[in-house]
């Protein structure tokens, strides 16, 4: 949490502003395909604050889940019990994601590159890996078939790399119109929300550009946490600080989750 010290003086943590900033991007009524962990936290925060009619779909089958606490796994019983309906996993991927019904795919990642491609597969060569990561999960098709994609992850030189060892899920590939030329339908990652700021793709080159910086964070900090020469938007904004209501809702959600699970919702 490189920005922790500064941010805490403003009475919220770097993870909290990341989560609240990510949640703000979700408009009410959006149909959102949610990954577990940070995306799920942000999406549920949106549902509990400004977007009560956001529709949360988890790859395990729940459609319209309204969990009372954050799920620890993608298939928690609470997701099933609070959903409008629970379908089989094949149907989720066939009728709902591939069917073109998802407005926003909300993903985490182990690594991203400058064109918002995602690696969750491997560090090192595929056949002799240095680190074996969990793998693709639902991400390749979420990244390609959701109308747009938000990625949320903490910013560090290990996570934000110039070149990925493996592209698990497509962002803008080599940039420019490469994604469209590859016949990928969705608009791709329109925002990468980190603990330091928000990166969005340049409209033409599709290179991730810092367009919003969290209060208390310096541009130098963000550059130092990025494995390439990060472009900074000329009209760089400062991220709005989390409002008291959202912060209270987030903390309450996490307190209830900790009480229910013994820990805060994780990956998987």
């Amino acid at each position, binding site marked *: 949490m490189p920005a922790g010290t500064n941010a805490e003086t403003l009475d919220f943590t770097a993870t909290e502003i990341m989560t609240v900033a990510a949640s703000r991007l979700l408009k009410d009524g959006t149909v959102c395909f949610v990954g577990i962990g940070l995306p799920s936290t942000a999406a549920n925060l949106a549902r509990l604050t400004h977007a009560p009619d956001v529709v949360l779909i988890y790859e395990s089958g729940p459609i319209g889940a309204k969990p009372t606490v954050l799920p620890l796994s993608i*298939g928690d019983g609470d997701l099933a019990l609070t959903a409008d309906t629970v379908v089989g996993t094949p149907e989720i991927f066939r009728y709902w994601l591939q069917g073109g019904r998802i407005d926003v795919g909300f993903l985490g990642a182990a690594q991203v590159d400058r064109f918002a491609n995602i690696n969750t597969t491997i560090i090192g060569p595929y056949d002799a890996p240095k680190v074996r990561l969990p793998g693709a999960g639902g991400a390749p098709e979420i990244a390609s078939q959701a109308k747009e994609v938000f990625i949320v992850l903490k910013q560090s030189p290990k996570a934000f790399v110039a070149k990925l060892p493996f592209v698990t*899920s497509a962002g803008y590939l080599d940039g420019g119109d490469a994604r469209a030329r590859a016949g990928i339908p969705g608009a791709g990652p329109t925002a990468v929300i980190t603990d330091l700021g928000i990166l969005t793709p340049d409209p033409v080159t599709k290179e991730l550009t810092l367009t919003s910086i969290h209060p208390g964070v310096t541009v130098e900090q963000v550059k130092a946490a990025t494995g390439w020469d990060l472009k900074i938007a000329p009209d760089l904004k400062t991220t709005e600080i989390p409002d008291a209501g959202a912060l209270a809702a987030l903390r309450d959600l996490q307190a209830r989750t900790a009480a229910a*699970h013994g820990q805060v919702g994780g*990956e998987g």
Partner: protein
Amino acid sequence: MAKITPLREAVASLVHDGDTVALEGFTHLIPHAAGHEIIRQGRRELTLVRMTPDLIYDQMIGMGCAAKLIFSWGGNPGVGSLHRFRDAVEQGWPQRLAVEEHSHAGMANAYVAGASNLPFALLRGYTGSDLPKVNPNIRFVECPFTGEKLAAIPSVLPDVTVIHAQKADRRGNVLIWGILGVQKEAVLAAKRSIVTVEEIVDDLEAPPNACVLPTWAVSAVCPVPGGAYPSYAQGYSERDNRFYKAWDPIARSRETFLAWMQRHVLDTDDFAGFRRVLAESMKETA
């Protein structure tokens, strides 16, 4: 008609060395008891199939049951890595593990194709991903009407599928509800199937259009209350999140792993025995 039989007998007669075996359950209803029994009976050279290999596959891989893994996401949900899986892939311990890697969409479609007796699954998938570069079983076909390029992957066709379900009736009809995952497809795609259940009842009391596997579509039904532990069975038990966290340090080293498996699985007779010994050991470390 499914045979209602103890799990030990079902595994002995239906799971053979070298089989392609799918233990399915998407976080919910993971058939841990059956996985333990496969380990106890020392099955070898299995091709394991599973969308989300988790603790039970970490154990089976670490105990040397598996020659190959077909999967789409391998981790300890909510905690982190599967250390035995990583050790097999990264270091080849206890033996090299061949890996065939897909996306969830690919695997889910491959189960559907298997259940449908099709040789391959057709999907819009893998576009822009490097997965087709490392998996020769991801190919592409052309639509004969539009010319579009679509992904094709081989159907999943297990020799045996193993799942856990909430209940069966005395004839062996099985009811599953809640998070359904790909269990129905996995059973219907397989030549043989084992379903462990929380209980056997007189009447399933299934709602209309519930997910029911008729008895004649299942090979064996085995009563194993709590058989999904540390996963859960909706309406019967909660997920034990403590165990998922406790697994991480156990699995980190080969020695602690082997000692734990010896005490909790190899030296116990069945899943009830495992649960008793586990309760003791968790008290010790508490």
